């Protein structure tokens, strides 16, 4: 098998040239650039996401507060993992929220039984999600295409129903699983913080720095999530560039041909399924670590659909796309949904009364609880005009600039040639 992969010409995203150069941490060429960009973006996020002064009217659009930043990177992890399955093998799972849910429950149970240190919870969340995804993957992967999607959807809805009403002693149903003062917490020492922490530093620990009119919030929990996301992103790059990743692409492009050449694709797809399930479990564990409550809604099909949207919106099969998609959707959910009529009236206050009311009436269905509508329209536009997602959009813009530059270069070269004659 390794023979086959080495003989295969390098795929669309790897070039033979990068293969030959040695890299840092096993990364080469563009991947290093990508990794550095993601590193800078995540580390400087508290500054980048707060571009507007704290008391200006545009502060409404600032996203640099801990809860949302944590959500950006946690759902980034979720989407990166989902993309390993969907982007590489083409298997569209509609049940990934189930793994997110079991990860959350596992972590909260560790809080309840051991103590508030997040490490045991995170480890267990990944393990439980892995076991769970082996079970679901083993059965679901016997079919492909729409049947696979439906099977995963069915499993996820089953898990949701179990968590919501059948297994209430374990999940606390609709109320959500949370930590009570009456819980045993066998390893909780006397002086330890009474909320999720990493060796004594709480996830809530926050330093606010004000520079002029700007206010930037640096939150420990966010940086924990961000570092884990960087590790997850690095892993994803390595998987994408590995022979294993190549095998997965082969499954996507022509599974039949693989079968004919005597390769059994199922171990590969199952491995991809379990890996992406573990990513989801990790994301779920992190969610519970940032806010120690696990609700059954996390497992509902809408949550599974959300990660599909994130991946497609950002660009399925690309490395950074899912992270961008996750960020965009969470931004809409948290920022647009909070614009109410009062805010709209403030915006349009400078206009005459009649026009002000008219504008508010027009904009009203698209903000506040109508944020889904705006997101839906955007999703449609992206799918129709940018099938490759935001990444394709970025590439097109880049190409426009590059073409100009190249064009001048070509002319220069031509001019030189002519002058030389």
């Amino acid at each position, binding site marked *: 098998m390794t023979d086959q992969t080495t003989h295969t010409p390098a795929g669309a995203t790897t070039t033979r040239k990068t293969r030959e150069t040695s890299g840092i941490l096993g990364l080469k060429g563009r991947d290093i650039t990508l990794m550095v960009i993601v590193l800078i973006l995540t580390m400087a996020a508290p500054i980048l996401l707060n571009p507007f002064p704290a008391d200006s009217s545009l502060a409404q659009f600032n996203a640099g507060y801990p809860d949302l930043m944590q959500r950006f990177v946690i759902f980034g992890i979720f989407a990166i993992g989902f993309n390993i399955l969907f982007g590489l093998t083409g298997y569209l799972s509609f049940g990934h929220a189930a793994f997110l849910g079991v990860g959350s429950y596992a972590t909260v149970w560790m809080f309840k039984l051991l103590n508030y240190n997040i490490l045991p919870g995170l480890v267990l969340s990944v393990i439980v999600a892995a076991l769970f995804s082996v079970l679901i993957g083993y059965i679901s992967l016997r079919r492909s295409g729409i049947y696979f999607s439906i099977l995963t959807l069915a499993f996820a809805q089953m898990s949701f129903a179990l968590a919501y009403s059948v297994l209430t002693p374990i999940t606390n149903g609709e109320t959500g699983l949370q930590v009570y003062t009456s819980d045993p917490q066998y390893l909780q020492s006397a002086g330890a913080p009474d909320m999720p922490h990493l060796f004594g530093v709480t996830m809530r620990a926050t330093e606010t720095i004000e520079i002029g009119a700007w206010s930037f919030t640096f939150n420990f929990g966010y940086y924990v999530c961000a570092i884990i996301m960087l590790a997850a992103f690095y892993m994803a790059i390595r998987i994408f560039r590995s022979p294993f990743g190549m095998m997965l692409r082969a499954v996507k492009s022509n599974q039949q041909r693989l079968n004919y050449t005597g390769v059994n694709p199922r171990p590969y797809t199952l491995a991809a399924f379990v890996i992406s399930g573990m990513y989801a479990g990790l994301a779920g564990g992190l969610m519970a670590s940032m806010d120690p409550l696990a609700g059954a809604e996390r497992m509902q099909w809408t949550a599974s659909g959300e990660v599909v949207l994130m991946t497609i919106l950002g660009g399925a099969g690309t490395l950074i796309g899912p992270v*961008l998609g996750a960020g965009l959707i969470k931004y809409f959910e948290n920022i647009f949904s909070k614009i109410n009529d009062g805010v709209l009236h403030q915006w349009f206050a400078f206009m005459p009364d009649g026009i002000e009311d008219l504008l508010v009436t027009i904009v009203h269905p698209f903000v506040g609880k109508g944020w889904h509508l705006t997101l839906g329209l955007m999703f449609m536009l992206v799918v129709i005009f940018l099938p490759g997602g935001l990444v394709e959009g*970025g*590439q097109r813009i880049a190409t426009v600039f590059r073409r100009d530059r190249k064009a001048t270069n070509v002319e220069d070269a031509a001019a030189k040639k002519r002058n030389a004659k």
Partner: protein
Amino acid sequence: MTKSNLTRRGLIKTGAATGAALATPTIFTGAAWAQEQGFTNAPTGDTVTLGFNVPQTGPYADEGADELRAFELAVEHLNGDGSGGMLQTFSSNALEGSGILGKRVEYVTGDTQTKSDAARASARSMIEKDGAVMISGGSSSGVAVAVQGLCQEAGVIFMAGLTHSNDTTGKDRKANGFRHFFNAYQSAAALGPVLESLYGTDRKAYHLTADYTWGWTTQESMQATTEAMGWETVNNVLTPLAATDFSSYITPVLQSGADVLFLNHYGGNMVNSLTNAVQFGLKEAQANGKDFQIIVPLYSELMARGAGENIAGIPGSQNWDWKLENQLGDRYKGTNAFVQSFGEKYGFPPSQAAHTCYAQTMLYADAVQRAGSFNPCAVVEALEDFEFDGLGNGPTLYRAADHQCFKDVVVVRGKENPENEFDLVEIVEATPTEQVTYDPDHPMFAGGDLGECNPGA
């Protein structure tokens, strides 16, 4: 995206900027000119922000919309605009209509979606982004319990809106959380004698229960009370909160040998299940030689409006009703003042959800004013064992042991011939406070611990 032009110079520039930002000493932070500090979101400047977190979507969306109206009205009255509402009748005179402690009240709103997760996310963004010093609202006990836990951790005050589960001030009680609304135990205690006089002591009850903390404790309370007076419980079926069609749950009821159906449902759930029950002819049915009866332990005008004529004759309990002062007299003063200012602004009478949210906002503002500080611990101290009157419920006590309000409970019935769409329920009686008072460590409330008040950072 992947083809970004990352130059060495650009990288160094960004790094330097980041480093400079990180190195800025904290002397430049806001604390330098804060008037108050030492707790989460200490208000600086001349405004204070409150967070109103209500369901704008989901089965309790109607209640949420009415709560939001009440919050807007309360803020208006606190800032001295409008008619002043219950500020005129409130027994405490600390508030002057000039904001809270001289700071103008501003507010942010959020959608809980009637989901614990979404509600906590929304509340967190209010605390972290908007700097809310108090969170109120919620039309589901699951949400209220979840958000109350969050507020305890974050160090802000939670003034529970419409939440009726025993757990909110029972096993999930928190030092930073307060509840004005009554609870399932009080409903049962008030409804018991009325049910006995209406339907006798020999009945067989079938329960349909919303599957979450509120449904569980309501069912438990009703079962305990009715069994104490000789009724028998045939069955208890749990229904998902997100359910919209209950016909499959209603079908087995008549075959079960029961002659009373308890709908432990609220909001959209109750509207749907009652409609289903009436469509299946339960209201006209006979069982065990008696007329079949339907009981809805927790009632509201909004639900009555949703259920229409199906509600006629069905008994239940309420925290408050807009006709209270007109029908039962001066004991419930404040009711008319509130109904009047609400009606002037919105054109119809307020629901009990609106009333409790309005009252909670006033109680919080008053406690801050009396304590002279927004510090959550000072507010807790001011609210504990606070006795007040003139907020529409008669004399009321905020008990220190569990942060629950004790006041009269209103027993109501659906009107047979309503005159208009806002006058759908008639008041049967107001059960006096003594009858609905219980010990803080009553078995249905045991296992909880208020803990210490948490002022946060």
